[in-house]
């Protein structure tokens, strides 16, 4: 595979880790008591470890499923809001109108990413609020507890909200998954009941990268007249989602997974679908979600959505190539086994757990925690399980539900690639991981190889 730079877009490489602000601004007050401060665009995101020479600098960030650096377009949009669109979008005066314009622009941009009408986009504080709102908002449309169907590999924002609904008298069916983490449409058909109010299925699983057959699942839900919610936090911008054709009623999005800022997300609510409000108060978001909108982060979300939509085709292809290169490079160790679906898979996502055959000589194989700590020391940022609970050492419930043993599951490792990731980053990562595996006592890990050799794998 040829070295590709397409994905790095306009983000500056920032070799020396320059501060974004020049000296005068850094000092705070400018001249004449006037203060000009702004977020300059296009510079200052020290994410890539690789300079064009392939020399190692800074570190390699391979945790884009946890969060992504903010793209230049989003920073520019955020800056515009702080400079001149800071009014309250509900105010009817000029400052308010200007801010409302920024908000509506973002609504169009986010809608365009998923083929939705802007009037179907409702901004939230993030993916978690959108997921909570989808489930609880549908639930509160019913006087009496009903039946909810989710999968056994949902993000905690869905899984925990479903647990909560259970305490309120709801019945919850958690669909099983196969060894690669996929839900079967037949299982969904069998699970539906006359009182099923909602089916909620994650689109792209954040820990193992498996992409669910949401079109088939949605058709089954709709055939039974049941609402269908999809958590698309990991897939939006990474694979095409067109709600003009997909049988989906509600869909959750998050800004900070698509190179937008944290603190913004959205719930798509198909026109005509009734949902109760979660946050009560003022009449914002067409009276469905109270609270002054986070205009700056929402504008950044919109700009990020527009950019990622533009480059999706090229970037997805590029990342898929790099991802597969990582899979191949690490498969040689014999210490790790890939997890998740190799075909229906997030393009930027490579995940593993321990292959016990590689650790026969050890009484206790290392945990994912041991692995990531070593990798962090080598300036490679990866995750072991999903960020929200990666502090805990218990085996991932997702891997257990896929049929892995505890000792295998406890050694989970996730690499999620992004715009800044280059081939040289992958090759270096393969080299370092194999070295770490060897150090931790894996017999089968290959001896150190020169990265140049990997090119011919």
């Amino acid at each position, binding site marked *: 595979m040829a070295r590709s730079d397409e994905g790095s877009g306009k983000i500056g490489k920032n070799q020396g880790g320059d501060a974004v602000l020049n000296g005068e601004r850094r000092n705070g007050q400018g001249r004449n008591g006037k203060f000009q401060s702004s977020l300059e665009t296009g510079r200052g995101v020290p994410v890539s470890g690789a300079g064009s020479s392939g020399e190692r600098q800074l570190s390699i960030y391979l945790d884009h499923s946890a969060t992504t650096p903010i793209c230049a377009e989003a920073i520019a949009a955020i800056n515009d809001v702080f400079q001149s669109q800071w009014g309250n979008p*509900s105010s009817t005066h000029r400052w308010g109108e200007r801010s409302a314009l920024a908000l509506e622009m973002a609504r169009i941009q986010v809608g365009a990413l998923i083929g939705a009408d802007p009037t179907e986009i409702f901004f939230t504080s993030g993916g978690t609020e959108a997921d909570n709102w989808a489930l609880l908002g549908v639930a509160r449309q019913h006087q009496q507890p009903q039946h909810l169907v989710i999968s056994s590999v949902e993000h905690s924002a869905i899984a925990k909200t479903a647990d909560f609904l259970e305490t309120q008298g709801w019945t919850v069916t958690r669909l099983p998954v196969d060894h690669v983490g996929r839900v079967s449409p037949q299982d969904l058909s069998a699970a539906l009941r006359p009182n099923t109010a909602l089916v909620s299925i994650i689109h792209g699983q954040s820990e193992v990268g498996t992409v669910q057959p949401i079109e088939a699942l949605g058709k089954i839900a709709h055939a039974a007249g049941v609402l269908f919610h999809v958590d698309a936090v990991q897939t939006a911008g990474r694979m095409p989602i067109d709600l003009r054709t997909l049988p989906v009623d509600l869909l959750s999005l998050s800004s900070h997974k698509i190179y937008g800022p944290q603190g913004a997300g959205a719930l798509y609510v198909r026109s005509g679908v009734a949902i109760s409000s979660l946050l009560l108060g003022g*009449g914002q978001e067409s009276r469905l979600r109270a609270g002054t909108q986070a205009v700056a982060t929402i504008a950044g979300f919109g700009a990020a959505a527009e950019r990622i939509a533009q480059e999706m085709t090229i970037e997805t292809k590029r990342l898929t190539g790099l991802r597969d290169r990582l899979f191949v490079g690490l498969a040689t160790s014999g210490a790790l086994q890939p997890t998740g679906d190799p075909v229906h898979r997030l393009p930027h996502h490579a995940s593993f757990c321990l292959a016990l055959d590689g650790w026969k000589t050890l009484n206790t194989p290392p945990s994912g925690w041991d692995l990531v700590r070593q990798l962090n020391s080598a300036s490679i940022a990866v995750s072991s399980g999903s960020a929200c609970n990666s502090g805990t050492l218990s085996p991932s419930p997702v891997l257990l539900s896929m049929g892995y043993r505890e000792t295998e599951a406890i050694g989970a490792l996730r690499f999620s690639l992004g715009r800044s990731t280059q081939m040289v980053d992958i090759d270096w990562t393969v080299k370092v991981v194999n070295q770490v595996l060897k150090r931790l006592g894996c017999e089968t890990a290959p001896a150190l190889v020169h990265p140049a050799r990997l090119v011919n794998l």
Partner: protein
Amino acid sequence: MGTSPSKPLIADPPLVLPRNHRDPIYLDAHATTPVDPRVLEAMIPFFTETFGNSGSSTHSYGWAAQGAVDQAREALAQVIGASAEEIIFTSGATESNNLAIKGVAEAYLEKGRHIITMATEHAAVLNPCKYLESLGWRVTYLPVDSQGLVDIEQLEKAITSDTVLVSVMAANNEIGVLQPLEKIGQVCRDRQVLFHTDAAQAVGKVPLNVDAQNIDLMSITAHKIYGPKGIGALYVRRRPRVNLAPQFHGGGQERGWRSGTLCVPLIVGLAEAVTLGVRLQAEDNQRIAALRDRLWNYLKSENSGLTIHLNGHPTQRLAGNLNVSLAGIKAADLLRQIRSQVALSSGSACSSTAQKLSHVLAALGEPNRQPFANLRFGVGRFNTVDDIDTTARLFLSAVTSQVSSSH
């Protein structure tokens, strides 16, 4: 409100915001405020460089984000007399109010199902209360006097054995009235009822101390104190421990009370905005009140030709608040006439499209019946004497033309 001579000596604000000459003067500081450049400066590195997820415990990117959140939490807690573990970050005051009211109601089901609040509260308090009423809770809406103050004796009488929460706002968003938090807190403490205050308009602008004022829960937002929109906090007392039922379920952030990835740059901005507000409080309030009084003196002067009434308590109010009712004037026409030069509001922003008399003014009773027009001026940190003089001139000439055209 002062009756000082019409030309007090007022200093320029310490910073002047860049403003295009075509931009209208901003006198709507209760709706929102521009981000102070110092706050922006604090946030910038977290938009451009330190982008990690504070929940990522496996690498330095996450730790750097976590460190920034910890520091912000500590700073915010300190200026309200709290400790860091008593702060929950939220998306803003609306979410904080929802979490406080619904969260306490659901967590104290065993104790009782009665909540006391006030008729002049913000919709983000009133609507969660109405929601609870629809589920069988009982809610008492305390009236206020003609100046907007709550009656402590009435509050005491309203508390019953099944009262779990009293929610009274610190500063009103329309008339700026400051409630006697300390007294209310004392009553609640004596009667062993939790006290929540919506301090969205007050934080940074008036002295707040959760211990001195016996506050158990307090809602905070950044965008009314020159911070960014989309970030707020809820203070929740630990000693004695206040319980809450979380409203967002998921990754268990904020010690399980509020799931969702934290927005690091906005959290840094919130802490910077509030601490800056507290630091500048005395100086800001003095200058802003002088500007506000200057405007009031213009409007009420005899040659203005206006029949004008001040809404809310004359002195116990936010320094930048001026809320007036004008006889024989159509507020919408007046605002339209001056909108290219001055931005102000005829009520709260959250309901600014509604034409009816606001629930706050209705609660004050008498002189606010039609055909009075209601206008809310919100003077802020970056307003100058020139802003006030220009506004007064434009405003009075618009009034004159409206009055003469109606004859």
